[in-house]
């Protein structure tokens, strides 16, 4: 009976129940989705690290892919090499790894005769992986499991690409996403709490009535808590399922982004219960928070607390100072959290101050201002939630757009050339110089050699990517450098090197710094002539002039970048390729054109930020829905007041205008509060968090056009609220009656 009486509230307000469930479901879906993805990525990296700790990859000196025969030959040579067959999943996301447990038994760490436990994904027997590899992309690697003095002829060691300094970067990337997920949790917790406490407020009379009928307050609270818990479970369970679905949908792009950015495969790790437990724990915390209100007297406190302004100012100052000096991603995130907290605390008070009416205002305007002040106080929580969500969307939008712009510009510089022709194995570039010297075939060209070089350090040596090209080529000279000495290309022509931003940041290099590079047996000290941007890769790279490479340097990859003569027809391209084939005496050539490479690169970077963008927009959507809902409830509870306007003689249209203006003012207030948060967050993202997470920074840019779009969206919300009121407008001249849950 009591239960029925309590639940009658939702019978009368089914929309509220639905909305509460929807917010619970969507919020759970968002954070459990992100959590699943990032924990899958972390598990993948950890699994890879465990299997390959301290091991090196053996590669053929001739650069060819390794084969089963190579594996058998190396084993018969007495080397403990173990195969690792990585196969992409059919959807391109999570991968499986084929291992040979029999072969792994020679590894020193393994107890005699024991192999790894291959209990399904991601590690499967290599024969199963080989079967999958028949129609999916795969790569076979041979890891050297024990240390040996010398290698058989034709083989060389390569530091495992996965063991580069990328682990930390990939981890930071995931931390980035997790921080976003925490923000989602925070925003949705604010929303859930505000929707719930508003509902509770509406039920105040009903609950008081039950108390008067003799129901003990404690019992009532217990029932309310039970009701809240049941609601949480009802919302969270489908939400968790949705989250898993979201993770699966986004998994493919996320997997590609991980692979492209950090050379880290997203592995098909077995599903863990941790994600579910975290979801349950977060949900329990939110329920606990809402429950606190119950035990504080049954009335939700959506207003403000004492010392709010000093607290806000303290958080803002502490956050600003920390973000400036933050040396790690965690401290940068903590600082950001402090800034957001400060903004969230100060915003309602600030808006109220701004909305304060002047005595000389026209009566209607005065009324509106007072009412706006009331609404800001009553809607403080959802308002802050929407402010933070909108601020995040502004920042993420700016980050992605800045990145796209910068990246495209950078790509145009790096890919200045029409064709990229791979030099066939065993063929010399010098053989095709006569062909490329013919002006009617090639307007300009330069070679690009890639390989590995050792950076000798005080404590440890590390392997770096090396790129060598012709520094006199006009195709490279238009690169804009982040920093450089005077005439950097001349310096490179004289033996200096350029380093990428990642390496410069990692090793604290500036133009003029000196490096010791090891090429096989010999070492060379070089000076840094400049730093260039190198987006989307974790590896450090040095770039030098081809002329200064040691004679015996064995590049892993050689290609030619060729610019075709202006306006040359497709036939000229074919003629050039035929001449190159003839000069090299080969039947086929690996050729890629500028457009294909551009498309590929753009695709990779779209994937990189797809997830970030999706999460931020979903959060905004969630916040907007919540605000619409709470706005509807709060304005609804104030309907008595608004009806008085009609009684005072305000005509229907004028009444609608007043309500619309009120709703619009509320939305504009939120927008105005979100923009500075967005700008600050943009700066933190591009200048502080991005270098820590990715290894490179971006220029700061703002996009007012997008702010206007966002404002239009909020204006639409205002229109919807006002429109709903118009439909419920009172008949002219009838005195308002106080409805259920309304206040005077």
């Amino acid at each position, binding site marked *: 009976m009591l239960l029925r009486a309590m639940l009658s509230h939702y019978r009368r307000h089914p929309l509220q129940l639905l909305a509460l469930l929807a917010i619970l479901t969507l919020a759970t879906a968002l954070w459990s989705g992100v959590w699943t993805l990032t924990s899958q990525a972390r598990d993948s990296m950890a699994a890879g690290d465990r299997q390959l700790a301290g091991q090196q990859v053996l590669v053929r000196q001739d650069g060819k892919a390794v084969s089963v025969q190579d594996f*058998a030959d190396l084993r018969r040579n007495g080397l403990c090499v173990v195969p690792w067959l990585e196969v992409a999943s059919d959807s391109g996301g999570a991968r499986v790894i084929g291992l040979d447990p029999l072969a792994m038994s020679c590894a020193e760490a393994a107890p005699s005769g024991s192999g790894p436990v291959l209990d399904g994904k991601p590690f499967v027997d290599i024969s199963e992986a080989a*079967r999958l590899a028949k129609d999916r992309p795969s790569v076979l690697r041979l890891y050297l499991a024990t240390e040996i003095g010398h290698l058989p002829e034709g083989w060389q060691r390569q530091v495992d690409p996965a063991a580069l300094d990328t682990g930390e970067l990939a981890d930071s990337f995931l931390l980035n996403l997790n921080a976003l997920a925490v923000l989602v949790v925070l925003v949705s917790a604010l929303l859930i709490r505000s929707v719930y406490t508003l509902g509770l407020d509406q039920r105040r009379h009903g609950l008081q009535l039950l108390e008067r009928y003799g129901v003990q307050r404690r019992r009532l609270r217990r029932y309310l808590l039970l009701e809240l818990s049941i609601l949480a479970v009802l919302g969270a369970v489908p939400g968790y399922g949705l989250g898993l679905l979201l993770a699966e949908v986004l998994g493919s792009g996320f997997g590609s982004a991980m692979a492209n950015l950090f050379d880290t495969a997203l592995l098909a790790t077995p599903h863990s219960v941790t994600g579910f437990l975290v979801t349950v724990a977060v949900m329990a915390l939110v329920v606990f928070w809402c429950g606190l209100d119950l035990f504080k007297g049954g009335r939700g406190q959506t207003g403000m607390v004492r010392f709010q302004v000093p607290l806000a100012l303290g958080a803002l100052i502490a956050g600003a100072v920390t973000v400036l000096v933050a040396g790690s991603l965690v401290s940068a995130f903590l600082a950001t959290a402090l800034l957001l907290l400060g903004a969230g605390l100060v915003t309602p008070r600030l808006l109220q101050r701004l909305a304060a009416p002047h005595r000389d205002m026209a009566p209607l305007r005065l009324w509106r201002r007072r009412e706006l002040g009331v609404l800001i106080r009553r809607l403080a929580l959802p308002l802050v939630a929407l402010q933070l969500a909108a601020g995040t969307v502004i920042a993420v939008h700016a980050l992605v757009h800045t990145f796209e712009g910068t990246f495209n510009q950078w790509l145009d510089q790096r890919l200045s050339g029409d064709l990229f022709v791979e030099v066939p194995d065993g063929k010399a570039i010098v053989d095709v110089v006569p062909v490329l010297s013919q002006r009617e075939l090639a307007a300009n060209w330069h070679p690009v050699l890639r390989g590995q070089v050792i950076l000798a350090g005080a404590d440890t040596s590390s392997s770096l990517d090396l790129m060598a090209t012709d520094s006199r080529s006009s195709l490279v000279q238009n690169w804009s450098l982040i920093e450089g000495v005077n005439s950097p290309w001349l310096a490179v022509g004289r033996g200096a090197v350029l380093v990428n931003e990642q390496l410069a940041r990692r090793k604290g290099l500036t133009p003029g710094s000196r490096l010791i590079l090891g090429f096989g047996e010999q070492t060379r000290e070089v000076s840094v002539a400049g730093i260039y941007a190198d987006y989307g890769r974790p590896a450090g790279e040095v770039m030098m002039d081809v002329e200064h490479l040691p004679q015996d340097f064995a590049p892993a990859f050689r290609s030619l970048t060729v610019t075709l003569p202006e306006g040359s027809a497709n036939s000229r391209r074919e003629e050039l390729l035929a001449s190159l084939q003839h000069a090299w005496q080969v039947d086929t050539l690996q050729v890629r054109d500028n457009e294909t490479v551009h498309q590929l690169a753009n695709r990779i970077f779209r994937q990189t930020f797809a997830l970030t963008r999706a999460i931020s927009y979903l959060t905004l959507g969630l916040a907007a829905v919540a605000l619409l809902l709470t706005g509807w409830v709060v304005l609804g509870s104030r309907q008595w007041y608004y009806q008085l306007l009609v009684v005072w003689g305000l005509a229907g249209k004028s009444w609608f205008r007043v309500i619309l203006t009120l709703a619009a003012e509320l939305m504009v207030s939120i927008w105005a509060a979100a923009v500075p948060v967005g700008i600050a967050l943009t700066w933190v993202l591009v200048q502080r968090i991005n270098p820590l997470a990715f290894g490179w920074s971006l220029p700061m840019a703002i996009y007012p056009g997008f702010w206007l779009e966002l404002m239009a969206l909020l204006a639409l919300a205002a229109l919807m609220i006002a429109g709903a009121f118009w439909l419920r407008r009172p008949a002219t001249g009838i005195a308002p009656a106080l409805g259920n849950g309304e206040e005077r």
Partner: protein
Amino acid sequence: MKAVHLFIGLLALLAIAGCSDEPSDAGFAGLADEGQEHGFRQPAPGGHISLPEDWGAHPDYRIEWWYLTANLETAEGQPLGLQWTQFRQGLEPRPPGAPAPDATLWPLQSAWMAHGAVSFDGQHWFDERFARGDIGQAGATTAPLQVWLDHWQLSEMAAGRWQLSASGDGWSYDLVLIPGQQVVRHGEQGFSAKTPDGQGSMYFSLTDIAIQGEVVLDGHSYKVAGLGWLDREWSSQFLRSDQRGWDWFALRLDDGSRLMVFQVGDGDGAFRSGTWVDPQGEAHSLGTDEIELAALDYRDIKPGRVPVAWQLDIPAMGLSLRVSAPPGTYWNDGLYPYWESPVSVSGSVDGSGYMELTGYGESAE
């Protein structure tokens, strides 16, 4: 038959690896029950051994091995025992003449295991290696003879001249083997029964392989020479589930005779079999009733209690022998551990040889 148990180790490994059917029962014995050998060819009385083909692998049979033990002496006259064994375990039968699976698919039709051990001056060195078949990492060919797993290999250098090399942690050997001509076919023309109801394996041995070469132990190099015993055996049957452990002896007696004896199980229910090769080189099969075998002395070692001295009597041949292991622990502590030691023989005639004991130690419980 002596090494059948080692394959169970392999199976266990593959089960750990999750890439084979799980053993139907814990331990090695459960693998032997009927119905487990489906698809593989069964050895039977009337089968015969043809050489050199049978030096090669038999993919239509489930299990097989090449098993060398050697009693050598250093230049200073110190005894040195040595073992090299290579096993193949078929996981899927392949009819004779059928093409091998595509190596690029990392097939798992068979798994290989190799054991290498050296016993010297009371110390024992042991290592083992594993490989999947059909990818080139391990295999056996007949012309020329080559049996290899990784860099451990037995290979024919020239007609009647083999080379054997293997190495592990702290030990290595590089030996030249002169196999000789005499081939001993055990049981009924090579079909050696392992149970009273007629299950068994194809089994032949070279009992007098002249060996010389170099053994390196913990950095010390020793020139060695002596005689080796090579067993070649294939089957598709494991032990029956009511049989547990076995004891195997290969003895070279000073009167020129040779004796191979094994027993499966223990006590009154033990199944015993053997071959006595008289000084003239003629082989005589021995049945359960003709062999008396009893443990005389035990040694408590870390893994358990092992019988290290035995009374072995073959009354029909007038043999009464005491077979004893030298002091030390000759425990091959691999995936499936067992005892493998050189032995000395005294009694009606002196001699030397090798002894393998399985089913002892904790893992047999």
